């Protein structure tokens, strides 16, 4: 096996491309977070019979600059580190959380060829890297030297580690059907199939009717727990734990947590889109004139919209109920699904 030598001159274009790509992805995440926070505020406002931000930014367009102003405020705020906090860990934690989120975006394909790096173990990499977020959260909770933050961190660790399992099992279904862990291969496998090429019924969501659909549902709900969104926002449930693991954070460090949360929302939506909804593929061949990245972002935004809508509709579950749902409902269902699809994949290899 050839070892990748980053210093070799012929690898220079790859290094440059990947650096530029990560810069673009970082920019995209920030823009996405700004838009998503604004959307969240507007959607919640309209769900609650009010307007939300209306003034900020001028031109009278629905307070479009509100999140820009909020971000600016956060950046300019005093960065308070509690006197009894473990200062090094306290400072480090938000960056680990953010890096864990951002790293996953390296393997998320925005188009058939538009990808940071097409790892042949892309799915595995994404699942593994998103688990490292737990370390950052635990670090934040522990280093804050605040009991509420510690509770939030412990809850978060239990929750994220538990929900990794149904998530991984659901993601295995498309992997088995495509026979590859690479996101690009999974997308290509969703292009062809019976009875026509490039139609939406070839997407894995509709491929083996009940099983893949159940897998998608399990993935969606488990990803809500993974991203700490309602009804599974237990680690930062404000009525119980004040603000959970980031209770003591202010200013830019809090902004990093916030950014990571919204980046995570996009990542889980993007992974769901890629493996279940055909990623950048158009739903029908005659819609191919719209470029792939637009389809990708559009589909992901639909999932993000559902996430937001759920947050403003549902109450929060309790810790033991959360674990009950994971271990006694999602896990057996995901395992059954896994066995069924494994049988299908064995009987009818592609």
């Amino acid at each position, binding site marked *: 096996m050839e070892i990748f030598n980053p210093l070799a001159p012929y690898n220079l274009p790859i290094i440059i491309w990947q650096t530029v790509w990560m810069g673009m992805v970082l920019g995209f995440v920030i823009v996405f977070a700004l838009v998503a926070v604004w959307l969240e505020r507007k959607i919640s406002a309209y769900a609650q019979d009010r307007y939300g931000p209306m003034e900020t930014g001028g031109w009278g367009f629905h307070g479009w600059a509100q999140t820009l102003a909020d971000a600016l405020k956060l950046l300019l705020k005093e960065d308070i580190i509690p006197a009894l906090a473990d200062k090094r860990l306290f400072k480090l934690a938000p960056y680990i959380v953010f890096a864990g989120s951002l790293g996953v975006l390296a393997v998320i394909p925005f188009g058939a060829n538009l990808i940071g790096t097409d790892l042949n173990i892309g799915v595995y990499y994404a699942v593994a890297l998103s688990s490292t977020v737990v370390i950052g959260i635990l670090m934040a909770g522990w280093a804050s030297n605040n009991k*509420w933050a510690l509770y939030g961190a412990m809850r978060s660790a239990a929750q994220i580690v538990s929900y990794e399992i149904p998530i991984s099992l659901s993601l295995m279904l498309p992997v088995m059907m495509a026979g590859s862990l690479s996101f690009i291969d999974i997308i290509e496998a969703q292009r062809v199939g019976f009875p026509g090429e490039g139609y939406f019924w070839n997407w894995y969501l509709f491929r083996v009717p009940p099983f893949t659909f159940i897998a998608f549902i399990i993935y969606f709900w488990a990803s809500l727990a993974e991203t700490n969104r309602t009804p599974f926002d237990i680690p930062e449930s404000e009525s119980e734990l004040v603000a959970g693991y980031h209770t003591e954070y202010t200013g830019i460090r809090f902004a990093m947590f916030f950014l990571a949360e919204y980046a995570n929302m996009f990542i889980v939506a993007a992974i769901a889109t890629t493996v279940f909804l055909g990623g950048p593929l158009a739903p029908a061949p005659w819609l191919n004139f719209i470029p792939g990245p637009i389809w990708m972002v559009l589909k992901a935004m639909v999932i993000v919209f559902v996430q937001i809508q759920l947050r403003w509709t549902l109450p929060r579950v309790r810790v033991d109920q959360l674990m009950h749902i994971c271990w006694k409902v999602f896990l057996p269902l995901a395992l059954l699904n896994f066995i069924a699809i494994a049988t299908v994949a064995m009987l009818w290899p592609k």
Partner: protein
Amino acid sequence: MPVHELNIPLGPSHDKIVKLTGESMTLNMGPQHPSTHGVLRVELHTDGEVVHDAIPHLGYLHRCFEKICEGLPYNQVLPYTDRLDYCAAMNMNFGYVLPVEKLMGIQVGDRVQRIRVVMAELNRIASHLIAIGTYGLDAGAFTPFLYCFRDREHILDLFEQVSGGRLLYSYMCIGGLMADLPEGWIARCLEFCDYFEPKIDEYNNLLSYNKIFTERTANVGVLPPEVAIACGCTGPMLRASGVKWDLRKDEPYSGYEKYDFNVIVGEGAKGTVGDSWDRFFVRVLEMTESVKIIRQALAGIPEEDISATIPKNFMKMPVGDVYFRSETPRGEIGFYIVSDGTKNPYRLKVRSPAFCNLSAVPYMARDQLIADLVIILGSVDIVLGEVDR
């Protein structure tokens, strides 16, 4: 008898928690915690997520209400009663003017009685809306809170039209009312009743029958009737435990005997009688009963002078003491007033409902999860202004 000596078998919700041994951690919930509904501090002895003991610490909002009253004439005490339970200021005014009128032997006219009942019931709805909304907030549902506040706004508008205030009204005065109803107010109030009744279904669909919400609240914080009585719980909290006790029915005052309404008791529809869901739902159903009372009270309202029975001054008060209790949204408010014949009360003691209701929290919170403690505390519906006084 103190709660911990009662030796009552723990309810069904206690069985599900496996006791683990470990070092217990003391955790201060409040006074700045978002779900203590004010400046309450609860000292928690926790073992992981399980709360072994919850001890409420009071006094952060103590304003010497009872002592201040000793230095004020009877009519000037009234604005201070607003500040007891600021979520139901009309009921507090009502609870204060009744004992003073009893002391002075004043019989107010039918119009005054009816207007007072309408105000008290409107404020009961407003207060229950806050209770329901913030309870949803405790459970993590943000949207019902704003729906409740949207509808409460209409009640505040009605209050503003009669009294000028939106939170603290001081509308009732000893022997009468501050002002008569403005023109067209009765029609606007009936319009609100028509608007409001269908909204209750909206809350039920959004919150009361929500699966996650019922899972969170049913069988949590079960309060058996004997403990509720031993702790002196009153109001929706006592009724949710299945005790049919409502002063409006059992000791009617101000003409409540004329109105046809039901006393709502908890039936344990989603779990056990006296659980948090029952306490929540009793409040929801009481709002419909209040609307019924408002309609009846406004239907036969006579044209009278509302200031006919207002005393000119308080120089010649009868000597003696008086106790009178009335039903507020949180339970029984009782004023004990000792008069020595001067214009100021010699002693004034308030028996406040939320204070007594809060005393049941240590019993209900024993061996519960932290998340359940928030639910239990929310279902008591405390107002710290009245607990601490």
